[in-house]
């Protein structure tokens, strides 16, 4: 059976040696059922052990392996290699500082994520003796798809506002904050809307919809961000007439 070869043009960057990122080409034989991650693993195992990149679960649930493949943000473990021609460009995720090769610095994302308080906020915790929170399937349906986010950050790579406005909270952080705003067990809308209207404001979103186009888990962050704008608007209007209350 004939071997198919592809050339991988991979971004390399070693902060101890390089002023700026460069590229290196690797030509390898590929299997028809490979994902892009399989090619990277082959390169690292057999051709160039110095190549650095993140990966883990190989099944699109951990969110580790996000990279730019031929200019598009992709999960390399999910990305079918046979869709590409003879040359495949692999670069680190766009809009993030680059630590080394294909590894990006994502502490900036973690900081934005924590600011939206992505956990159940209640004025008073329900005592264990009182039993569990009851939630109907309809109540779950309100927010379930927003909870599917695996923090892969492909949406941040695609978002034009993230490119231009460093303070913007970004699609995943806002979607996850909104997920809790919609959760019937949560009482933290007031606190989160303060964050949504502060630095990093949800209103910076220009509804490009790129985030939802690239999301591998169909979270639809664009829907969340734009619903969050309405929530923030109502919160602002309410704040004009009512004093602020609720857990902070």
């Amino acid at each position, binding site marked *: 059976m004939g071997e198919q070869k592809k050339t991988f043009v991979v971004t390399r*960057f070693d*902060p*101890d040696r390089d002023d*700026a*990122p460069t590229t290196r080409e690797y030509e390898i034989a590929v299997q028809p059922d490979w994902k892009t991650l399989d090619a990277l693993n082959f390169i690292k195992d057999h051709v160039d052990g110095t190549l650095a990149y993140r990966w883990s679960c190989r099944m699109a649930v951990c969110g580790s392996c996000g990279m*730019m493949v031929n*200019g*598009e*943000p992709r999960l390399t473990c999910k990305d079918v290699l046979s869709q590409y021609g003879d040359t495949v460009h692999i*670069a680190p995720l*766009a*809009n*993030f*500082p*680059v*630590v*080394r090769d294909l590894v990006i*610095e*994502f*502490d*900036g*994302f*973690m*900081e934005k994520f924590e600011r939206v308080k992505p956990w159940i906020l209640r004025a008073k915790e329900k005592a264990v003796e009182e039993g569990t929170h009851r939630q109907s399937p309809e109540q779950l*349906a*309100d*927010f379930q798809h927003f909870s599917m986010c695996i923090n892969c950050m492909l949406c*941040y*790579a*695609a978002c*034009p506002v*993230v*490119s*231009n*406005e*460093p303070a913007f909270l*970004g699609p995943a952080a806002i979607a996850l904050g909104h997920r809790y705003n*919609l959760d019937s067990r949560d009482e933290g809308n007031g606190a989160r809307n303060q964050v949504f209207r502060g630095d990093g404001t949800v209103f910076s979103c*220009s*509804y*490009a*919809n*790129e985030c939802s*186009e690239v999301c591998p888990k169909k979270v*639809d962050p*664009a*829907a969340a961000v*734009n*619903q969050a*704008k*309405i*929530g923030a608007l109502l919160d602002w209007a309410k704040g004009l007439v009512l004093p602020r209350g609720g857990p902070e």
Partner: protein
Amino acid sequence: MSVPAHPQAMAPSRPGRTRTAPPQRPDQAPFGGRYRSHTLFGATGFVYLLLGLLALEAVWALGGGSASWSGFQASLASPFMIAIHAISFVSVIFVGVRFFRLFPKAQPPRLGPVRPPPAPVIIAALYAVWIGASVLFAAILAGGIL
């Protein structure tokens, strides 16, 4: 090659222990691939700003008497202004189509106990209002009614 992103894009509040390379925008941005539609959508801001100012000029001329109104109408009759309005018409249609496609998912999942109708129903209703109101308004402006 790609364009640099803002140098502080996604930067953490404290720098890490090693030097990082600056963030880059995706290769396609801002005019390529999917970003083209988004950039065009933003650029319609020029059209809307102009149309708002022209409407202001129209009302001002109307309030200034018959001669000033005729003067305003005459100013719209130049090939240049007609071309501007033709481009504006295309822009307005583009804005409507793109906005209506994205409108349903921006609605909250419910208001109290009431859920919004399915997306296709919302979009159909929006187009019905757009077409209906446009036909009515055009008929009024063109002298057909009132």
